[in-house]
Structure formats: C-alpha cells, structure tokens
C-alpha cells in the first residue's frame, strides 16, 4: 500500500508537469487545428533558461530559496513566451492559409533549429542543475515521504492550471479564445482579432511549457537539448488522452499518464516506463483517437 501511495505521489508530480506541456499542444490544436511539433523544444529551452538562472547569482541568499525558485520559473516563462510569439510570427503566420502539412513541416523545422541553437549556446553534453539549487527537505506524511521539489511542482503546476482554467472559462478574452477555436470567421464578425488570439495562445502555451521545463529540470537535475522530443511526445500523448483541443482534458490526461507511468515503473520495471507511455499512445491512436474524455465538440446545428 505504501508503495502504491508513494508511486501515486510520484505520478502526480511528473503528471502535473506533463499536463502543463500538454496544455500547449491542446490550445494550439484547438485554435489552429495544427500540432505544434516544436512545442517540446519550448519546454526544453525553459529548462535551459532555468538552469542558467539557477546557476547565476540569483540564488545568492537575499530571498528565501523557494521564492528565488519561483522567480526563476517566472523569468523562464517570460523568456520562452517571447520566443513563442516570435516563432508564431516568423514560422506559422506566413503559412496560415497553406495546407496543414506545410505548417507541420515548418514546425519540425523550428524544432530542429531550436535544438541546434541550444546545442551551440549551452553545448552538446548533458548539463546538470547544481545540487544546492533545491533544498533537501523531506516530509513524512502518514507513512510516505514527500520532498520539497514534489511540493513545489504540485503547488506551481496546480496554481498555473487553476489560473488558466479561470482565465479561459470566466473572462471575455477566455470566451473569445473558445469562440475562435469553434469558428474563426464568426469570431471575426464579433470583432475578435483572431491573429491576436493566436498570438496569445503562443504566449500562454510556451510559458506553461517553460514552467514545466524548469520544474522538471530541478526535479531530475539533468537536462539535454534533446529532451524536448521525449517529454514533448509524452505530453502529446497526454493531450490525445484527454481529447486534443480539450483544455481540462489535457490537465486530466497529463495527471493520468504520470500516474500510469509511475505505477508501471513501481510494479513492473522502471526501465520500461517510457514503453508504457508510448504503448498508451499507440493504443489510443488505434482505438480511441478522440481521447478518453472525447473531442472538444463544437456543435454545428
């Protein structure tokens, strides 16, 4: 039982990170009907920016460590959000009227470009967050152990997801995002600047991805310029699982995937944990491509 609960907590932790990344896939798909294959690289660049910030003088001790880490997360989010907007403007907007395949090829091009840029800037070898970047505090709650990083990941991820959910569901601009996802032309007739909505999506998605990148970097410590593909694919699986285009679905899908992965790792073999994830992706694509929660359905009457 202890193993089960422990793996559940581990699963929720990585799952929350997958959810953050999955939101970027699902929001871009929802509004543009396009899979942004460069999204995993926003995650990766977030983890590198976090690495540089953590290694710099920022953690000098002027403010408590947890607060400094939040500052690192916020700064990385801002940097990658800016990058996201630039990528949309340069690589996707000119292709808005071309076929979807063209946009996908452009996205793969962006991905290769970003990976190589990171390799040139930070080097081809694995980099590691310094050991002192995370306090080694562990709490014992009812027989199971929870460490500082798990609490930080859960707090930041759930905070961001709740904020996003409220923004999309409760504000007029959020309603404009949902309306644009349903029907671009009618959204335009409401006076909604669809280009601006797309820009906003490319600000929010990469920012969430960057937060995930910093958090996972701090959690596993090691980062590499190719991790975008691995984690991108996992988060993509989570997005499909929740029904691509469905925002709450991406949140649930990420958490579910993290839990399944960690239960598989705990009960079967941790060396096989990636296999479980991609097995799930294959099974979903074969038997339930609209996801477990169903597609975001726009009723056309």
């Amino acid at each position: 039982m202890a193993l089960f609960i422990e793996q559940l907590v581990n699963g929720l932790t990585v799952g929350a990170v997958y959810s953050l990344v999955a939101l970027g896939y699902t929001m871009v798909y929802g509004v543009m009907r396009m899979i942004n294959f460069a999204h995993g690289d926003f995650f990766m660049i977030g983890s590198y920016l976090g690495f540089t910030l953590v290694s710099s003088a920022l953690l000098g001790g002027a403010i408590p460590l947890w607060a400094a880490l939040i500052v690192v997360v916020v700064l990385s989010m801002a940097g990658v959000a800016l990058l996201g907007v630039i990528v949309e403007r340069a690589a996707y907007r000119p292709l808005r009227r071309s076929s979807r395949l063209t946009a996908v090829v452009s996205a793969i091009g962006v991905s290769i470009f970003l990976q190589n840029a990171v390799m040139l800037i930070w080097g081809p070898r694995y980099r590691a967050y310094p050991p002192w970047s995370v306090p080694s505090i562990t709490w014992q709650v009812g027989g199971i152990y929870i460490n500082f990083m798990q609490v930080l990941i859960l707090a930041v991820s759930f905070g961001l997801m709740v904020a996003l959910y409220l923004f999309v569901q409760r504000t007029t601009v959020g309603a404009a995002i949902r309306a644009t996802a349903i029907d671009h032309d009618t959204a335009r007739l409401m006076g909604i600047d669809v280009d601006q909505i797309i820009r906003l999506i490319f600000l929010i998605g990469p920012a969430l991805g960057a937060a995930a990148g910093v958090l996972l970097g701090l959690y596993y410590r090691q980062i590499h310029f190719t991790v975008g593909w691995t984690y991108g694919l996992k988060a993509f699986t989570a997005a499909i699982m929740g029904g691509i285009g469905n925002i709450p679905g991406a949140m649930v899908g990420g958490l579910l995937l993290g839990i399944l992965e960690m239960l598989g790792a705990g009960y079967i073999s941790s060396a096989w944990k990636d296999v479980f994830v991609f097995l799930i992706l294959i099974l979903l694509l074969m038997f339930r491509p609209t996801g477990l929660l169903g597609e975001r359905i726009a009723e056309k009457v």
Partner: protein
Amino acid sequence: MSLLELGDVHIAYGNVKAVKGIDLVVNDGEIVTLLGANGAGKTTTLRAISGLLRLQSGVIRFGEHELQAMPAHKIVELGICHVPEGRRVFGTLTVEENLNLGAYKYRNDSGRVQLGRERVYQLFPRLEERQRQLAGTLSGGEQQMLAIGRGLMSDPRVLLLDEPSLGLAPKLVQEIFRTICEINRQGVTILLVEQNARIALRVAERAYVLETGRIALSGESLELRRDPRVQQAYLGVKEAAGLS
C-alpha cells in the same frame, strides 16, 4: 444620405468570379434587401462588406471610411455588424457568453455590455430565460434570435442580415421580421439578404436583385413587387396573374 456604398465591386474565389461589378447604396435609416437565387453572390457580397473576403477590385465606403482593405474586427469597431447565414452561434458557449462576445469591442466597459444585454432581452425575452443554457441546445428560432441579438451587442449603425428566415417555421419568420422592423425603428440601418422575397419586399424600402454576380434590377420595393419579372422569378406568380 448614403451610409454604405459599394462601387464597381468585383470578387472572385480563385478563378471563379462570384461578383462581377456591382454598385449598391444603403441610405441611413433604410432597410434595403438583396434578392437573388442561390449562388447569385448575395452572401459573398455581405462577406466582403464585413471584411471576411477581399475584393478583386472596387470600393466599399462607410461614411468617410473605405473598408476594402480593413480587417474584419476593425469594421465591427466602426459600426457594421454581420449576422451570418446559418446563425453560427457558438454552441458550446452559454447564451450570455455569446452575447458578451457580440460586445467584444466594449469588453472593458461592463456597464455598456450589461445595457446591451438588457436591450437584447427586451427584444427577445426568451433569451433571458435561457441565458445560462448552452447555445447549442437552443431551438432553431431561438438560435436565430441569439444570432441577431449577439449582432446588436456591438451597437451597430448597419446590420447585415443573411437569410434570417432560413429553416424557420412561418410563424417564427413573422416574429423575426417584426423584430427586424423594430430594430430598424430604433435607428439601425439594415441590409437584408433573403431567399424569401415576399417577406423581404414587404419590410424593405428598396431592393436589389442579383443574378449571377450582377445587379439585374433595382428600385423601390413597391415597384419591384409589381414588376412581372420579379413576380415570375421570385414571388412565384404566374405570368397571367402578373398581367391581370
């Protein structure tokens, strides 16, 4: 005084010419209708006015502004609102959210949005009862009310209505058109595209008849109703009856 004016407008989809040089004037305060068979270019013309389609050539004037190079959201801000064919309400959003989006240009002025909703609920009390319901669950008539109400939320000077009677029962059509006249009395100029020529010619002061992308006839509704060509082609009156 002319409020909206189209001058020698040409529109094409790829190589297919849909509108081949039309001139059209809508005066302040009027109801003008654009009649014609399927594929005559009526919807295309409305979509060009609201900025969803680009012209091949020609001008569209609204007051002192030229619209032909303007993005659609700017045109809404200037005061033209297009209620599209087939209603196109946002089905997974509530009635109230749909209305709020209609007032997107006033999104930072919640008092104004509130007033707009009250005005719409006065015209269509049924929408107020259903404000928390998803728009996709409304009946066809209610969706048409919502589409028109949503259009009014931007407080337009000109309302472009595309086939408001489409798919509605005759009694509902009467009701919708009574409301359209009421909206016009409140000072909104209306350009109406309709297949139902009989009712359109009853509410409109003037009419244009489009045939394969050109204006075939135009004039006062009263005259056009007596014109044998119109009677035969659009009002379903037999030739003999037209002559009698």
